[in-house]
Structure formats: structure tokens, C-alpha cells
């Protein structure tokens, strides 16, 4: 494994979207880890120490905002991009308050544009 390879954690319960994101990021030479809810997401952060997280909001068991809150409570400030679809104004506000790196609406972006955003955030 390339030591400079950056690790991206995708926390997304929609398996199709998650797979497509994973393929696009793998092609862009990122190491990709998947989690399908907030609980799995926290475990994955502890295990893989990602350089950046792509977080959905609406997920079973634990949503993305609560996951961010819990990580912040334990002092973990891994950069996060909220990648979700057309949520309520409150959810957007909560995500911003929790210090999400950026808030992207999935439907507005093509996969390659998301990869470019991640590269620019990580200065790759």
C-alpha cells in the first residue's frame, strides 16, 4: 500500500450510492472504507483513522449528525463532508453547527466533481 495514500470513509446507508462512490474514489487512488450507519461509522473511524469522511445524514441506528457529535465529544475532529440529498433546513443547520467541512447535495454533483472536491480538500 502506498504510504501517502489517503483513506476516505464513506458512511452511507444507500448501498448503490455507496458502491458508486467507492468505485469512483478507488479509481482516483484513494483507500476507501465503507460503513452503512453512524454506529459502524464510529467504529470505522477508530479502526481506520480516515483522512476524511463522507457522511450521509438520514441513516438507520445513528444518523450522520449524531455520529459527528459523538466523535466531537471524544475529541475526534476528522474532517467531514456531509453528502446528502435535499434535507430539511434544520438538518442543514445542524450539520453546519457540528463543524462539517462542507455540505454537498448529492443530486447537484457528478461523481467526478465530488472526487475533485475531496482532492482539493485533502490537497492531493
Amino acid at each position, binding site marked *: 500500500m502506498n504510504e501517502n495514500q489517503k483513506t476516505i470513509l464513506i458512511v452511507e446507508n444507500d448501498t448503490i450510492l455507496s458502491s458508486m462512490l467507492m468505485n469512483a474514489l478507488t479509481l482516483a487512488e484513494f483507500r476507501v472504507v465503507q460503513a452503512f450507519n453512524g454506529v459502524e461509522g464510529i467504529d470505522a473511524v477508530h479502526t481506520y483513522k480516515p483522512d476524511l469522511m463522507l457522511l450521509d445524514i438520514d441513516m438507520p441506528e445513528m444518523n450522520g449528525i449524531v455520529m459527528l457529535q459523538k466523535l466531537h465529544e471524544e475529541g475526534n475532529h476528522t474532517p467531514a463532508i456531509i453528502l446528502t440529498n435535499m*434535507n430539511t*433546513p434544520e438538518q*442543514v*443547520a445542524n450539520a453546519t453547527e457540528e463543524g462539517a467541512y462542507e455540505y454537498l447535495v*448529492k*443530486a447537484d454533483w457528478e*461523481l467526478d*466533481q465530488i472526487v475533485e472536491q475531496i482532492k482539493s480538500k485533502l490537497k492531493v
Partner: protein
Amino acid sequence: MFKTKNIFNELKLGEKCRELGVDLWSCPRFIFVIMGAVIITAIVVTYVVGQHYVSPDAIILLVSLLTVFLLVVGQTIVSAFERVVVGRNREIAHVKEIIELRDQFVYIAIHDLASAATAMKWGMRTLEPKIYSHLPPAEKELFAHLRLRNERLIGLSRQILNITKLESVNIILRNETIDPIAFISGELASAGRNFTSKGVSVIYNPPSECPLIEIDPKYFTDLLRTLLNEASDHAAKPTGTVHIFLSHTTDTISITIENDGPALDPLAQQHIFEKLWKDENGSRIEGLGFGFYIAKKITDLFKGKISFTSIPDHTVFVITLPLHPIQ
């Protein structure tokens, strides 16, 4: 006599009480008329009694009884008012609850719809380079149509979400201080591919400097995207141009968005800011859906102004926004 009749006609007691949804004896207007009649009668009776019974005790007793009676009538009127107000508050709370439930339903439905449309969008983009070149022309056209329809579905979802947010009972503006020159540049950069796919070139002419504006960036984004999207949809075909200008005064900024498409339908111009306006035959005018309605609602939310002119090859929308929020 004529005047008395007019007064009673004007009072429209039964009609007004029905409007309030209360029975006659709980209707403040009716009880007020009754109280008036009682007071007049009481004054007359007091006067007549006073003429015939000179005993101060009898007068004191009569006035005391009258006072108690008027207090009871007064209390009845106040209770009637309270019943009406409580009933109204309950109704308002119920309507709010229904609106909130509707909003929640819309948010969930739009979220799921948008997720499915995103999967289609990303899936088609992933498959395109692998299969597109092998497709016969008719299927290539079908592929392009599918992409276009999917984008429309995403656009419609976004518009419905925006309308729901704007018509919600609790709109909270989270203002931030932003540089309008950079903000518009950023929006144009993210909308770049959308313009290219529609064959539209964008020319942005910002001034060398512009004061900062205190505004909610999310709603400002929605406003710019909506107007830019409408401008690119209405620009000349197959290749058109959209010009964006930014100017300012000491208190406001003005954003001008201009396209070179055909003039808007004259009838549409009259109803451009109405939601889903239909003509007298019940037909909708192409392009007159949600977009301009959303733009107007957001501009109103910012206490700004929106205006337009439309002649062939030149349709211009101008939004003027205050630099600082107006309470």
C-alpha cells in the same frame, strides 16, 4: 328609522356569528348588542323609578342591582370573546400541525426521490463512457433523453423542497457576512456544467469592488441558482448567452441576469411570479411553474425587490437586496 335599519343591516349579526363558528349566545357581537339594549333599558328604568321613589335606599338598591347585572353581562361578553379566541388558537394550532406534517412528508418523499434520481445520474455517468460509443444513434438519443428527464426530476424535486421551505411556518434566516462578488463566482463555477450541457455561455461582469452583504447563504444560493437556471433555460437555442452584472449603492446590491432568448409570452409576463398559474382554459404556459415564484418568495424574504423586462433577444431580471437585514 332608515338609519336604524341601516345599522342593523350593517351589524349582520347572524352572518358574523356564523363566520366565527359560535352560537348566538356565545357571539360577542350579539351579546354586545344585547348589553347595549339592557343598559339603555336599565337607565330608563332607573330614571322612571327615581321619579316615583325618592327614598335613597331604594335608589341605592336599584343601582347596586343594576351594577351586578351589568357585571354579569360584561363577564358573559368577556367569556364569549375568550371562547372565540381559544377556538381560533386551537384551529391555528391544528392547521400548523397539518402544515408541519405535510412538510415532513414532503421532506421524506423528496429525499427518497432525490436519492433514486442521484443513483440514476451517477449510474448513467458511470456507464456512459463504457457503452455510449457502442450504441446506435437512436439509443444514444434515448440515453440523452433519459439524462435530461432525470435532471428535470432532480430540478423539480429541488423546487418542491424550496417551496416547502419557503411556505413553512418557521423560516429562520441564518445570516452571514459574505462577499457577493466571490459568492456569485462560486455559484457560477458549480453551475458551469449545467450551462455547458444546455449550450449556454456565461459572462460575468463583477465590479472591481462591492460591499459585503449580510444574508442567509443557503437562501441566497437558492435564489441565484433558480434565476440562473431559468436564464439558461430561456436563453437562445441551440447556443445562447447569459450575462450577469453586479452593482451596488450605499445600502443595496443589485444583481442583473440577462438572457438572449425569445421574449416571454405577454400573458406569462403578467403572471410570472404566480405558482403554477393557469389561463382561463385551465392550460399552463410553458416555463411558468415554480422557478420565478421561488425567486420572488426568496427576494421577499430578504425584503428585496425583483423586477424584469422581456423583449425579443433580451430578457432581464434584476434583484435588489439590502446590504443589512431589514427587520
